[in-house]
């Protein structure tokens, strides 16, 4: 479904990705982990064509995404839904207008059908009766839920989550994780979650990819990752800092 091959990306001569390769099968639920600044968000933005690599390629269902212009990418992006770290809701629009945004622009459904679909997805994310609220009236967790509703309303094949639980308290984080699992199971979508939240990784992922030093450092099931004896992986999953980094 998603194939990433030898992906390289630098920002102002600072290399972030130095040859990342992996593939994700249809219906899989993958969590990409790694320390802050290791290039997780950069990688997920390459997967949907928001960033273009310096070299390497990304294929979605066999179709090459790399090198396409913005208009060609719009058609491919219709297959994706994405939840941003900041939720990225359009703050001038209400919750309903945010969720219905793409359906209204496509103009394929009647107003009644759009309304019904919006109500349905707001039920799925457990936010009924919030249609008329503005994003500024919502809490952080509610914004993420609306962001998720906006991403699933048009039934995409692939859902990308960029740090879905960052900045949320543990209880809200747990409810967002459960929501991700439920959405993944109910809609049979391929899920890719980028996070550095270990609890979230354990709850959401069927397969884990860990990035380090600009490469895929290790790949495996959650059990394999948690039982790894590799010092870097062990320190990361147990939240232990490197003694060499504490020598200031």
């Amino acid at each position: 479904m998603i194939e990433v091959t030898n992906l390289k990306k630098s920002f102002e001569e600072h290399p972030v990705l130095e040859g990342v390769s992996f593939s994700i099968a249809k219906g899989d639920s993958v969590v990409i982990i790694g320390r802050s600044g290791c290039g997780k968000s950069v990688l997920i933005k390459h997967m949907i064509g928001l960033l273009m690599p310096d070299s390497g390629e990304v294929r979605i269902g066999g179709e090459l995404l790399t090198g396409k212009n913005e208009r060609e990418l719009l058609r491919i992006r219709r297959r994706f839904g994405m939840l941003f770290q900041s939720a990225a809701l359009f703050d001038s629009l209400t919750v309903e207008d945010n969720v219905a945004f793409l359906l209204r622009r496509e103009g394929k459904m009647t107003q009644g059908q759009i309304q019904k679909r919006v109500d349905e997805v707001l039920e799925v994310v457990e936010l009924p009766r919030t249609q008329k609220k503005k994003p500024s009236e919502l809490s952080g967790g509610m914004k993420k839920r609306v962001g998720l509703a906006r991403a699933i309303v048009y039934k995409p094949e692939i859902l990308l989550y960029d740090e879905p639980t960052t900045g949320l308290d543990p209880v809200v984080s747990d409810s967002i994780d459960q929501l991700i699992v439920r959405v993944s199971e109910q809609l049979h979508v391929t899920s890719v979650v980028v996070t550095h939240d270990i609890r979230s990784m354990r709850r959401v992922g069927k397969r884990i990819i860990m990035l380090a030093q600009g490469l895929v450092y290790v790949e495996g099931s959650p059990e394999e990752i948690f039982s790894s004896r590799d010092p870097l992986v062990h320190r990361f999953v147990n939240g232990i800092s490197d003694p060499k980094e504490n020598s200031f």
Partner: protein
Amino acid sequence: MPQFIRTFNSGLVQLGELTLLVLEAFRSILKHRPDGKDFLYQLYFIGVKSQSVVLITGAFTGMVLAAQAYFQFHKVKMDTGTLALVSVSMCSELGPVLTALMVAGRVGAAMAAELGTMRVTEQIDALRTLATHPVDYLVVPRLMATVIALPLLTGEAILIGIISSYAVGVGLMNIDGAYALKNLLYYSSAETVFQGLIKATIFGGLISIIGCYKGLNCRDGAEGVGRATTEAVVMISISILIINFFLTLFLSRVLAP
């Protein structure tokens, strides 16, 4: 690399990117139906909400120009030429330039700030993930609304400027109203008015394209939004003043009776 070469390079890059944005906007207008609701909202925001600024600018420019013209013309007993001078100046130069500068301060800055905030809060990326081209949704309605609104606002500024100059000239300076109006009509041609409206249309496009460009390319959080807004207003204002000179030379030849 020396600083002046870097600045020159950066200027060329910006010019190239602006040209690509203009081409993309025209392609979007021709191939994709613009959203009527967004367009009407922008027309309201740019046209209706700029009324007070434009009316005050037009009125006081006409008044001060009438007073100054009268002080000079009075010395050579040409008092009745006052309104003609105001009319020609307002129609061909002051009307379009001052209206554009005022609208640039209000609308160009607002566009850069709004789109810049959307950029740094990932709303533009969200738009792209929702299979929507930012030029279709954000730039085209603003461009069309500004191009339509600015000639109308300029016409309004010219009209109120001339009326105000009549009030000052005839009411305060005791110029002969009948002769002043006769001279006004004699020296003001349709070409003069047309020249002003063509300039306003071009300035309208300039305001929205630069405002949107600065917003879409904004970086570095709140500080970046502030910088984009300032740069947009400065760039629009300077572009208007420079382009106005060349437009005057060009249009004076093309529209010469």
